């Protein structure tokens, strides 16, 4: 009997150590096969309504990839949210907090706020983490020679503004018909609103229409004076470059002054259900831009329904919002992130990628028509091809009209005025490079 206890002890110790070892190995294995994505999000405050949709779509898409495909190339996607409250200082804290998470650190940062984007421009270069800003952010960062780490993807504000002019031109019966027309630029009086200003002024010169500028002070919940001015000016079109409560207020005020909503074209941040539903009937007929479209009738959304919501793992509390504009924008964020991982894995192997490797993936991202079809996102978002010099990749914009119940697509993908926009981007990026003492990359030498 004397021997038994030591034996038992030894056995127990052996079992314990094996278990510990296997646990450690398992841990290391699991860690080695996970790709971490930091998600700075805003789910409280003034913009929470849009945020919950966007992050819902984004997370659901990644969850779908995990559920259906077991991750990307066998590497599971993991993520962690961090509440920014749409506040710059909180955003920077989130960036620093998420930076070292996961086995390879945070591999991509997508702030979903132009202010936070600006605050991180220098930091992402130093930390070697690519920053992807889809449909917002710093426009001239599309010049990848000066901003290797920043990707203002799909379409920038400047491209969007030129497509608006094209869309209006088409509605007038040809771009040359714009001559002598009057367009009001009703904008949020902030860095965001001023983005569209310069390029629209150039377009006005080019096509001979006159541009009336009407800024609206933040938050824009009172626009009587601006709309009285519009009543006085009697413009042919109104471009609504709004954000948050400014959009429904503008639509309501348009109804109040009797201005036809069919003659109003909105920026994409004015083109979600959150912008039109509060305005009720007043929103009917309003058209807005979009880098992705609304509606649940796409195979990719179906895949999310089948693989995520049927298993009760969906992120949205209100399931009817699956397929809403902001939700679909989130899905686009997810698609681009996942495709970049796939692209980078093809070069660096099926393993968790570092920020540096992810940057390569983003820079060589090529989502053509065939790939879009495979993804189940045909017509859902435009083709995308990023190069070393061009970090925008597409520039295409679709227009949707609110029929009182939902957004209906009313145009094909519209090309921007590439020549003008690219010229402005390069000029502005060159100025930034000079200020900061950056030597632009030579793209001929990049692999």
């Amino acid at each position, binding site marked *: 009997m004397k021997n038994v206890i030591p034996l038992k002890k030894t056995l127990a110790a052996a079992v314990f150590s094996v278990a510990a070892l296997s646990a450690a190995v398992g841990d290391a294995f699991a860690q080695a096969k996970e790709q971490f994505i930091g998600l700075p999000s805003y789910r409280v*405050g*003034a913009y929470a*309504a849009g945020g*919950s949709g966007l992050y819902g779509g984004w997370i659901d898409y990644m969850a779908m990839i995990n559920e259906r495909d077991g991750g990307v190339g066998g590497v599971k996607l993991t993520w962690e949210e961090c509440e920014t409250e749409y506040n710059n200082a909180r955003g920077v804290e989130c960036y620093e907090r998420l930076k070292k998470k996961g086995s390879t650190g945070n591999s991509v940062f997508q702030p979903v706020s132009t202010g936070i984007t600006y605050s991180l421009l220098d930091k992402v270069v130093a930390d070697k983490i690519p920053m992807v800003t889809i449909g917002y952010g710093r426009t001239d960062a599309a010049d990848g020679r000066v901003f290797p780490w920043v990707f203002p993807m799909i379409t920038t504000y400047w491209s969007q503004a030129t497509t608006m002019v094209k869309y209006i031109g088409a509605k007038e019966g040809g771009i040359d018909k714009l001559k002598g027309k009057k367009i009001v630029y009703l904008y949020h009086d902030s860095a965001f609103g001023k983005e569209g200003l310069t390029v629209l002024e150039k377009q006005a010169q080019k096509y001979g229409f006159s541009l009336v500028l009407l800024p609206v*002070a933040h938050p824009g919940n009172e626009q009587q004076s601006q709309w009285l001015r519009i009543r006085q000016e009697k413009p042919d079109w109104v471009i609504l470059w709004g954000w948050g409560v400014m959009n429904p207020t503008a639509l309501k005020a348009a*109804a109040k*002054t009797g201005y036809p909503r069919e003659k109003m074209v909105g920026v994409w941040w004015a083109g979600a259900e959150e912008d039109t539903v509060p305005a*009720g009937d007043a929103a009917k007929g309003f058209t807005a831009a979009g880098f992705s479209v609304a509606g649940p009738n796409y195979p990719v959304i179906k895949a999310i329904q089948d693989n995520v919501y049927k298993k009760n793992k969906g992120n949205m*509390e209100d399931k009817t919002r699956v397929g809403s504009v902001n939700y679909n924008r989130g899905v686009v964020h997810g698609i681009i992130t996942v495709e970049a991982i796939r692209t980078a894995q093809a070069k660096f192997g099926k393993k968790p990628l570092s920020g540096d490797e992810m940057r390569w993936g983003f820079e060589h991202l090529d989502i053509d028509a065939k790939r879009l079809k495979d993804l189940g996102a045909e017509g859902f978002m435009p083709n995308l091809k990023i190069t070393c010099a061009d970090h925008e990749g597409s520039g295409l914009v679709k227009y949707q009209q609110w029929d009182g119940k939902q957004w209906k697509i009313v145009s094909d993908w519209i090309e921007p005025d590439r020549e003008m926009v690219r010229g402005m981007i390069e000029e502005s990026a060159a100025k930034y490079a000079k200020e900061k003492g950056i030597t632009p990359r030579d793209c001929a030498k990049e692999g």
Partner: protein
Amino acid sequence: MQFFIEVLLGGLLSGVMYSFVALGFVLIYKASGVFNFAQGAMVFAAALSFVGFQNLGLSFPLALLAAFTTMVALGILTERVVLRPLVNQPPITLFMATIGLSYVIEGLAQGFWGANVRGLELGVDDVPVQWLMDSTGIGVSSFDLFGAGVAAVLVALLALFFQYTRIGRALRAVADDHQAALSIGIPLQTIWRIVWAVAGFVALVAGLIWGARNGVSFSLTFTALKALPVLILGGFTSIPGAIVGGLIIGSTEKLAEVYLGEYVGGGIDSWFPYMMALTFLLIRPEGLFGEKHIDRV
């Protein structure tokens, strides 16, 4: 000239909208000396609760009743949990506590009802009155006229309440002098609870009007910022001041934006009302109808 009249009328009517929110501030400040910054959050919570109850299937009057009950409960709870323990603290501490309170209310409202933005229909269209448009060419929204009517009724109700009811007289006594009111046996805490409940009711009315105008979203909390210049212009303690102040702020703000705005780049209505109220205060530091404060050493 016709355009001038239109701007002026539009401004006066949007001024009424500001007054709705300012009224809530005045009621609470008058009775308890608290500058209640949470009034904006209360407007938001009230409108959101109303729409939330409506979405649950309640009819209009029932939803109104339910939202009213919610606001009264919120008011009473605030008095009990926040203000009573802070009795006799400096006004700034109370002010900060109400900012903390606004975070709590915003979080509760959005957490409970969800962050979705919603529409709100009161059955009055926000379109120009046609016969006026046809006969004079001046566009005045029927909804704005409706809002002005509601404001008139609301102020009349409040005036009657203050002048002719027992509680109203007690309220005025408390507003005049807390200690004197206490010494003649007026239950201060009951009065405060009633004031917070009434402020909740005013917030509900403001929330319904503003919500029907711009939709029910978080931005309803920003209406407080529109009310502050009205408040200092009209005086923190005067109900007529809140109305007259609203009319003055609303009309001058619109006239300034339309006629001066283009020369300075526009968007001046964020600060113009404040500047104007400030200039006015330099001439009359206690506001239009505020009580003159005499310092004694």
